């Protein structure tokens, strides 16, 4: 018989690289550990006490408030995002490229800046009411509360649905629709029976992003004075209601997990195909002007209102303010510093996790990958809270330092880096590094010379995305910044709390500019196709 030096029988020999697995596991553990402290803190609350806190009427009300908010916003986002995606991909809407860009732009505006602007525009004695006062308009419909929160969150999160749906529509094999048409289906029927099942996973993915964003958003409910989980947790924490804050945080995490489960149900089997030629676009006919009007209305409300308000403040002159509130260039520098550090750290931490998940799929690698998503699903307020507990009792050397802040950001936004990296790794034909090996490269040489250059766009795209979102992050920044450390975001928040809205104008403009710049990077690097 042949030489018997068997390398383990039974299991496939797709050997899991040890170093990578360890690195990947370490990253996953680092993400999960702080949250375990939250659970531990919650367990220290007595059972009877906890039950009383969780079941008292205000807690139930907070839960219902959040549920209604998430449902309404997600529904509205699908209502805006899917039609806009269809219009810009499949129809002969004039200036489709222009609309694609314009309709994606609200993503650049942090929702709390939007909320801020809407409150100043439409609030009592706001800019809009003053404008209408000569016409005898005494008051506008109440903007505070649920309506305002739904409006603002919809306007600044529907691009998630729009972008994912657009990508699915673009990559979908249009000959499938031709096939349906030849099988005696009308356009509407073939849309329902062919297009919808094909884009459903993408719509679900976009809706998931929206729902998670809404659930975790702190700024908008706070500014709109709407008692969602995040606002109540922050308020309770500030007023030493530590136990309530902790228990509400755990509840919020439970709701988040529920949404994640729901999404995987809706997503269904991902049996989608890609490729195929793009057929001729659907003629809009008499619907052309209503369609244009729809796109224009969305863009106007989402973009022109906040910009209009900001320019009004700018015109009114913001220089005339008290010294302590004046904007310092240092704030911008601080923001860029922490965002860049986060982008770099998240990319480094994401590399082993993404590579392992893409190239050595196994139960373990997918557990690690999933674990890193925990930070993304956990709202910033909760994460901030968890790290405050963790930092103050177990990691005192880094508590109240920038390290802990960056660590929080990395936990929070790591999935953006990993998602982008993993997709890039998957796009690299496994035969390419193999070809490099047969041409004399070591495994690490093949990685450096072949794989890395090919994933570079995805790597930078992911880093830019992390940079962008870190710049805008509000709640964790508020909870974890070292005392005396101010960023663009915290400065805006101070201006809001003190009621000097005009003070927010410079940092708001800078944030918009930086966000727009990062978006541009993403568009060019990721090849986000606006044609």
């Amino acid at each position: 018989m042949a030489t018997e030096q068997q390398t383990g029988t039974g299991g496939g020999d797709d050997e899991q690289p040890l170093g990578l697995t360890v690195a990947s596991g370490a990253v996953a553990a680092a993400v999960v550990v702080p949250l375990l402290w939250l659970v531990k803190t919650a367990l220290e609350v007595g059972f009877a006490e906890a039950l009383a806190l969780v079941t008292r009427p205000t807690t139930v009300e907070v839960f219902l408030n959040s549920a209604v908010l998430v449902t309404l916003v997600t529904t509205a986002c699908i209502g805006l995002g899917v039609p806009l995606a269809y219009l810009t991909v499949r129809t002969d809407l004039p200036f489709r490229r222009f609309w694609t860009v314009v309709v994606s732009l609200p993503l650049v505006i942090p929702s709390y800046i939007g909320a801020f602007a809407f409150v100043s525009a439409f609030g009592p004695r706001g800019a809009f009411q003053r404008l209408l006062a000569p016409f005898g308009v005494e008051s506008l419909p109440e903007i505070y509360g649920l309506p305002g929160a739904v409006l603002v969150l919809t306007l600044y999160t529907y691009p998630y649905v729009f972008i994912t749906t657009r990508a699915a529509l673009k990559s979908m094999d249009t000959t499938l629709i031709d096939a349906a048409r030849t099988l005696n289906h009308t356009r509407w029927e073939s849309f329902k029976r062919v297009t919808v099942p094909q884009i459903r996973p993408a719509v679900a993915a976009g809706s998931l992003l929206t729902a998670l964003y809404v659930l975790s958003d702190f700024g908008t409910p706070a500014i709109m004075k709407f008692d969602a989980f995040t606002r109540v947790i922050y308020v309770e924490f500030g007023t030493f209601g530590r136990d309530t804050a902790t228990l509400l945080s755990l509840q919020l995490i439970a709701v988040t997990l529920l949404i994640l489960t729901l999404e995987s149900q809706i997503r269904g089997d991902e049996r989608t195909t890609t490729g195929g030629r793009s057929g001729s676009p659907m003629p809009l006919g008499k619907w052309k002007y209503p369609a244009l009007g729809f796109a224009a209305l969305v863009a106007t409300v989402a973009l022109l209102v906040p910009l209009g308000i900001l320019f009004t403040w700018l015109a009114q002159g913001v220089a005339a303010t008290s010294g302590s509130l004046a904007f310092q260039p240092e704030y911008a520098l601080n923001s860029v510093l922490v965002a860049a550090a986060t982008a770099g750290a998240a990319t480094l931490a994401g590399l082993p996790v993404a590579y392992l998940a893409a190239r050595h799929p196994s139960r373990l690698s997918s557990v690690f990958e999933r674990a890193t998503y925990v930070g993304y699903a956990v709202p910033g307020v909760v994460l901030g809270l968890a790290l405050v507990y963790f930092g103050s009792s177990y990691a005192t050397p880094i508590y109240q330092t920038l390290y802990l802040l960056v660590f929080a950001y990395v936990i929070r936004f790591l999935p953006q880096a990993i998602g982008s990296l993993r997709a890039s790794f998957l796009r690299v034909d496994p035969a390419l590094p193999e070809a490099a090996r047969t041409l004399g490269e070591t495994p690490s040489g093949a990685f450096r010379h072949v794989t890395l250059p090919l994933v570079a766009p995805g790597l930078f795209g992911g880093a830019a995305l992390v940079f962008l979102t870190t710049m805008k992050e509000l709640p964790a920044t508020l909870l974890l910044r070292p005392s005396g450390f101010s960023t663009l975001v915290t400065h805006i928040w101070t201006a809001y709390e003190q009621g000097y809205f005009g003070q927010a104008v410079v940092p708001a403009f800078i944030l918009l500019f930086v966000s727009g710049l990062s978006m541009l990077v993403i568009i060019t690097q990721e090849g986000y196709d606006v044609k």
Partner: protein
Amino acid sequence: MSNSTLSTTDRSNRTESTDSEADDADAGGVLELDGVSKSYGTESVITDLSLSVEEGEILTLLGPSGCGKTTTLRLIAGLDRPDGGEVRLNGNVVSGGGTFRAPEERGVGVVFQEFALFPHLTAAENIAFGLKDLDEAERDERVRDLLDLVGLETQGDSYPDELSGGQQQRVALARSLAPEPAILLLDEPFSNLDVDLRVQMREEVRRILKEAGVTAVSVTHDQEEAMSISDRVAVMNDGDLEQVGEPEQVFQHPESRFVAGFLGYAGFLPGRIAGGVVETELGSVARDQIHGLAPEYDDTDIDILVRPDDVSAHPCGDGGEGHGKVVGKRYLGPTILYEVELHGGDTLLCMHNHDETVPTDGCVEVTLDAGHELAWFPREQRPETGPYSD
């Protein structure tokens, strides 16, 4: 302007090295597989495979999809690790017996199925990728020579996505030849090309390989491709080697029904050996026309392998019963295949020129008229299912 000493090794000279199967036992091959096995999970892909490849020859692993031929290639390249057995390159063990050499330490070249050209590098940079040990001038010269060899002198600065399928394949070939590998492996090298281009590239690839003088193992499921580019073919089925030999040898004297059916159309004519003849439905066939019919098979039932060009069908004479009736007709362009069901129930394919018509109703007589020895198989090996075709 090819080098004449290299280009003379073309197909007409192949017959010089007859009986190469006998050489398999020698340990002098560039590449040797000895009892190699491989399974993924519980599924065994290759079991106890042994093969030897001689210096300078082109050997093709031929078999249906899933037969383990691509796995064999990956084991040779070191891209996968065998579960057992030994792989030797130029006499050195590269896997087995506790050693496993990484692909980059083996000196094998691979032309991947979808070419695997590095999309971020130009054609010239792709070719230069494996030439790390040369200085810049030498490297440039080598790249120029290879571009020349594959007929892409002017395409060096093009990126892969700017090249046609045939050009990409030439670059892939040049890239794998550049480091002068001990052996070149080609994984379904033509499957990614259009049909017209495929035929043209077969000739071209064979020319390039012979001009480079490289030992090559190729893998395909296309029997025509295997026959046209190879010095020897190795027919694989279900993780086993069925037969290894020169294309003509394997085609004319298949050692198994599988091989007979996999290479070209095959029909099986039942017969019984009776003294100096074999009695069949189509009449007696002289015993010496059957290849290697040993005496111990006297008075047994056999199946004679009949190719469509060995038989022809004609309308029955008046009142004659003939041998069977036409049950199918396939146009192949210049020729037509008639499917004739014999009275005994077996089917034969008869090839005719397109201008000869055979009536598709009524009985036909079938004439066996082969200018060569016929292969045969003992009847008891006949499988339950029908004969293989295509």
